[in-house]
């Protein structure tokens, strides 16, 4: 604490520079705004083909998609580096990494993709920025593998939260649910929306408002009854 202020300040400056040095990207990755929609269109077409091919193999099993409260600490993992590795259902080598279920956009610069991954078909959500210079603003969350073979938590909502991307609540919902509502911790409910129907079940991915915390997802059946899944 006896160090001269300037020396201490310059040491602190050097430490700060060193601490962020690994975050520096030596090359910007400008993307043509005109090319982006075309690329996304082509990507979507490719994903559809991948999905169809995957489904034709019959290699899917929805009962293996599960989560549980005790495992949620391990839910969030940083996505693999680079934008190509986070493509919806497409790995770094361009090969399929799972069954694409749904995809969309969040705000004006993020895209998301919901897919079932790996042999156990864990449910995953990937969110990635499409903005110029933001190749590393991406995050992926997958449901952990089932620990006890129980499917009781198969519909428990999952949350993707990472400071680099918008937050999402996502998950699987029973086939008899026609619409769903996300309820936040402050009691407000987001607008109803229909789940995404796929050959392996119904799913949803809902972008959360800034700084909001989900409390539950309510599934509304056609017969007027509802089912509630707590986060």
């Amino acid at each position, binding site marked *: 604490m*006896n160090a001269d202020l300037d020396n*201490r300040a310059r040491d602190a400056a050097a430490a700060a520079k060193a601490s*962020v040095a690994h*975050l520096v990207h030596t090359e910007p990755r400008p993307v043509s705004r005109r090319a982006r929609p075309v690329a996304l269109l082509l990507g979507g077409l490719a994903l559809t083909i991948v999905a169809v091919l995957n489904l034709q193999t019959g290699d899917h099993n929805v009962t293996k998609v599960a989560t549980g409260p005790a495992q949620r600490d391990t839910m969030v993992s940083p996505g693999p580096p680079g934008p190509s590795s986070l493509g919806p259902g497409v790995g770094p080598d361009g090969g399929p990494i799972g069954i694409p279920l749904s995809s969309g956009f969040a705000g004006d610069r993020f895209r998301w993709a919901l897919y079932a991954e790996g042999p156990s078909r864990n449910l995953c959500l990937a969110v990635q920025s499409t903005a110029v210079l933001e190749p590393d603003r991406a995050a992926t969350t997958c449901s952990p593998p089932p620990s006890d073979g129980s499917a009781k938590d198969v519909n428990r909502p999952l949350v993707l939260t990472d400071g680099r991307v918008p937050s999402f609540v996502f998950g699987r919902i029973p086939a008899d649910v026609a619409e769903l509502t996300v309820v936040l911790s402050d009691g407000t409910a987001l607008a109803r929306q229909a789940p995404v129907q796929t050959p392996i079940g119904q799913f949803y991915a809902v972008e959360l408002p800034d700084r909001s915390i989900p409390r539950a997802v309510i599934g509304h059946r056609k017969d007027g009854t509802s089912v509630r899944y707590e986060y």
Partner: protein
Amino acid sequence: MVPMSDERRVEAIPAVRSFETMYRQEFSAVLALAYVLSGSRSAAEELAQEAFLAAHRRWDAVSQYDDPAAWVRRVCANRSTSLIRRRVSEAKALARLAGRRVVPDELPPDAAAFWTHVRKLPKRQGQVVALHYLDDLPVAEIAAILQCAEGTVKVHLHRARATLAAELRCDLTGGEEDE
């Protein structure tokens, strides 16, 4: 002296930098500035990239400025305040969510303490200190970046150093001669 060829003469004329060139040359410094002003590496990435994005979107105009990098630094410094406020609220919310991604602070304790005190300074004082020590910028350049008078920068720097010295119990001997 060897006469300069036409080709070399052309190269010697300072040309308007391309955006890519500025990005490569300045991103590291802007990122460090964002880091010390925000106190978070993820926020720093966001701030720095937003600043460069802003420059990219207006590059036709920004590239004509005397120092486009100064404009980027100003955008970054000005946005840091609002982002800090936003991040505090966000952190409180995210802390309640299981499975949040934790990014450890890798700054040594002395450095972390120093920048923590800098962030507690009034906004302009903190910006001046960050620019002064991170990039070793003279008062004139800091004034240009923050679009204020050199005298104002000197006052901010003087007051900030006095506060920091008191907070950190540091010796102020021989500090401001490089203004």
